[in-house]
């Protein structure tokens, strides 16, 4: 969550000798991250990122409350000037009032409070208010709306206002919506509700509020409004998020309500609103606020011993040091009410102590201790890396393509981002990469190693590591040779098949089968003392090359090696090495073999 805090507004609550730059640095190290410090004229504005667990900092006062714990650690004299949540209420509360009939589903709304303010005069806000709003990126609209926006920003509690006279029978029923119900919000957008949204209907059964997100247009305050129903609530957070996300309606109020706001801030916010209404609209509040409470006020203790805290920090703080830090954050030692969702376990206390002490003040060291002895199958990574580097040095370039494909593989995504990314792939292919790159370079030689995902019934897909190699060079044997060289490199004669496509050749290999048997071990054969006899023979190829080679090998074990030297039409030149480990062969020794070879080449 992002919030803009003007320095002057912050200093309405905070007295400190820290300069804006100091505040930025200190808060970023120990609290919320101040991403930017903007300067507008003489004013500085902090642009602050607040983590989702700290909705209590999503306001000017919330940041002041945090700063008062942090700044003294950097030797700045700092104190809070006032606490808007410790205030005497000018009104009484009751769970029913004569000016509004209310029915609330207690599971949807933890605190429902509202007050009628009569005879308001709608006009523009005074300059000081408009300026404040403009500093935080909002426009002044009219005094009623501006009060709501101002207080939400200052205290972190959203406020809503209804035109009291537009609420039929002055009756409100707060309930879950039914799927398909229609509601037009203040921004004149009409929403078809998904169902299960928190809404309010009035005495005429029409929906007048999409609670916690945006009010209905039909009950909105306008320039003719005389009587305002001022509305301060907290809502069940999961409902708020679901509605806001599914309607893609992300208002500031929704972002706050979906974080589960504390019930404790409702009445103080109501008090501050009433004062501003009196001051800026001339309105007269009813003496009694309706206040329906569906949740017990907060009271929580979390225990963490100094030993526990120090063992996590890796240093030794005294009990006093720990206490000083925790009290500065409002621990009494009870957990402060504004941290009710955030401080749950002893480790949360560790975090509070550690960050205020300062992570930058902690030492840094590598751990000692035993290493795990139960190794994983790490040789796989070695072989993958070896294949990649071999292919690179054979002129191949590595690609990384998305695992998502438009082709129906039987492994479908429930919520794809684009239709072309609807399925998980079950094989690797370079067809798209090649068609996109054709013409950019003379020749493409590509490879990729990635998992493919083979669907299984009622189980996770099998993840298989595959290799695909492709080339736009049409020389089949040259391409085949690359894969043969890879066989040699991996020390295993795996099976492979080369696919011929109109513009390229490719070969996909299931590495999951090969890597476990890949080996760098080679068999040593003693180097013979005797020289081989080498002869070239010409044969006509009337059969498959590998059949011919097998036939030649069968003639004699003395034929140790056969290399293809030349090929012209169906005429082959083969170089044969005759070799014996036990004696020096002479021309006479191989004469009978030569005869057999001649008869073989005549046969074929």
């Amino acid at each position, binding site marked *: 969550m992002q919030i803009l805090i003007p320095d002057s507004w912050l200093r309405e609550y905070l007295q400190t000798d820290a300069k804006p730059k100091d505040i930025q640095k200190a808060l*970023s*190290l*120990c*609290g919320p991250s101040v*991403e*930017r410090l903007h300067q507008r004229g003489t004013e500085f504005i902090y642009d602050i990122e607040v*983590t989702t667990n700290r909705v209590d900092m999503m306001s000017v006062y919330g940041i002041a409350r945090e700063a008062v714990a942090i700044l003294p650690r950097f030797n700045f004299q700092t104190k809070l000037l006032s606490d808007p949540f410790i205030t005497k209420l000018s009104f009484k509360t009751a769970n029913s009032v004569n000016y509004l009939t209310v029915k609330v589903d207690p599971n949807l709304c933890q605190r429902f409070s509202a007050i009628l303010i009569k005879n308001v005069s709608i006009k523009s806000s005074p300059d000081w208010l408009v300026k404040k709003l403009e500093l935080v990126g909002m426009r002044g609209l009219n005094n009623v709306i501006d009060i709501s926006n101002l207080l939400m920003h200052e205290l972190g509690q959203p406020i809503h206002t209804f035109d009291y006279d537009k609420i039929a029978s002055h009756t409100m029923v707060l309930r879950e919506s039914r799927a398909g119900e229609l509601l037009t919000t203040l921004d004149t957008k009409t929403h078809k509700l998904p169902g299960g949204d928190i809404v309010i209907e009035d005495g005429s059964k029409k929906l007048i509020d999409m609670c916690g997100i945006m009010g209905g247009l039909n009950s909105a305050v306008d320039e003719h409004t005389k009587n305002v129903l001022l509305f301060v609530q907290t809502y069940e*957070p999961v409902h708020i*998020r679901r509605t806001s*996300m599914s309607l893609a309606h992300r208002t500031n109020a929704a972002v706050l309500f979906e974080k589960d706001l504390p019930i404790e801030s409702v009445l103080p916010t109501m008090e501050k609103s009433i004062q501003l209404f009196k001051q800026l609209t001339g309105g007269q509040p009813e003496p009694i606020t309706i206040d329906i409470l569906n949740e017990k006020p907060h009271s929580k203790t979390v225990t963490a011993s100094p030993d526990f805290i120090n*063992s*996590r*920090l*890796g240093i030794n703080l005294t009990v006093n040091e720990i206490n000083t830090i925790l009290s500065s954050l409002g621990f009494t030692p009870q957990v402060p009410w504004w941290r009710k969702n955030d401080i749950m376990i002893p*480790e949360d206390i*560790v*975090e509070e102590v*550690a*960050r205020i002490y300062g*992570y*930058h003040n*902690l030492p840094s*060291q*590598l*751990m000692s*201790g035993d290493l*795990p002895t*139960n*190794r994983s199958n790490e040789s796989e*990574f070695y072989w993958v890396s070896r294949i*990649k*580097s071999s292919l*690179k*040095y054979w002129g191949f*370039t590595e*690609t*990384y*393509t*998305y*695992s*998502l494909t438009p082709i129906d593989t039987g492994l*479908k*995504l*429930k*919520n794809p*981002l684009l239709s072309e*990314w609807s399925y*998980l792939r079950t094989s690797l292919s370079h067809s798209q990469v090649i068609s*996109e*790159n054709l013409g*950019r*370079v003379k020749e*493409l*030689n590509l490879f990729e190693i990635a*998992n493919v*995902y083979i669907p299984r019934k*009622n189980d*996770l*897909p099998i993840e298989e590591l595959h290799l695909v190699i492709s080339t736009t060079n049409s020389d089949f044997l040259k391409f085949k040779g690359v894969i043969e060289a890879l066989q040699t490199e991996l020390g295993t004669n795996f099976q492979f098949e080369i696919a011929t496509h109109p513009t390229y050749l490719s070969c996909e290999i299931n590495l999951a089968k090969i890597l476990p048997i890949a080996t760098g071990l080679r068999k040593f054969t003693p180097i013979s003392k005797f*020289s081989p006899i080498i002869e070239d023979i010409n044969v006509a190829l009337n059969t498959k090359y590998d059949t011919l080679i097998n036939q030649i090998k069968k003639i004699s074990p003395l034929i140790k090696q056969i290399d293809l030297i030349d090929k012209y039409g169906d005429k082959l030149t083969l170089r044969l090495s005759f070799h014996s480990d036990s004696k020096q062969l002479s021309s006479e020794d191989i004469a009978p073999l030569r005869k057999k070879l001649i008869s073989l080449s005549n046969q074929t």
Partner: protein
Amino acid sequence: MREKLLNLKNEALAQIISATDPEELEHLRAHYLGKSGVLNQFAKELPLLPNDLKSETGQLFNEIKSAIADALASNSQASIPKSQNFDSSLPGIRPPLGHLHPVTRAIDEISSIFEKIGFIRVRYPEVDWDWYAFESLNMPKSHPARDDWETFFVDAPEHPKLGKIVLTPHTSNGQVREMERLGQPPIRMINIAKCYRRQSDVSHTPMFHQFEGLVVDEGINITHLKGTINYFVTHFFGLERKSRLRPNHFQFTEPSFEVDVTCDICLGKGCKLCKEGWLELGGAGMVHPNVLRSGKIDPKRYTGFAFGWGVERTYMMKSGLKIPDLRLLYSNDIRFLNQF
């Protein structure tokens, strides 16, 4: 005699290689291999050698004879250019040289840095049960990451215990899986894998890579996390880069940190390209006790830390590597790939 023969071979081969015309070659042939040539002189001396040397020297003699014959046969042209017109400033003829993808380069560097301090590299599912991706990591059902807007789900029936099938949005699913594999600490894991999230813009691709570190043992504390991160940052980015921890919030760690490194342009002074001198590297934290419990490890006895960072993002933060749009990495434009 053995030495004489070897000298003879070297001399002969040198002469043959530097011979430039057929006449000269023919002359060399007669000199070495002719009837009254040098080699035949040696042949006559062979029988006079003592018996124990005879066969060994005989073999050497045969090898040399055929080496010289081969050299004469193959050398019709000189292999080293001698022509006075030869221009040695012409470009060389290179062996074929392809390119490794930057993500591979990054993964290789990252894993080797962590392996040196005893981390074991593992591989865990990229498509995994909700239990490992979320539930066991202390993420409540209502957590935004678990809804359809942020994470991809496979259209398949749910497992009664382990829940939905998700495309892992982080490598943290390896945490509980590694605890299960080892049964008990010590754990030092580095898990690098593909991850998926439902977003695509200049700084996000729907598929990306993360590396996840996990250390669990007795007495592990924040200072060890700091030490490990400093070690990585100085090895990966260079000694002049510094790191720092700031508070952050994640469900599976408590306390949680944001890790920053100093900007590669200004080295921490602050410039237009960074946030006041620092760049965000990623999240880290002390393993949440509920996560240890999910992995059947006693949080009263053991503590741990974990971090999970984007491979692409981390690599982009290296000096001098500024890619304006992360989606380029997966465009597979050959003109891009050929630059690495």
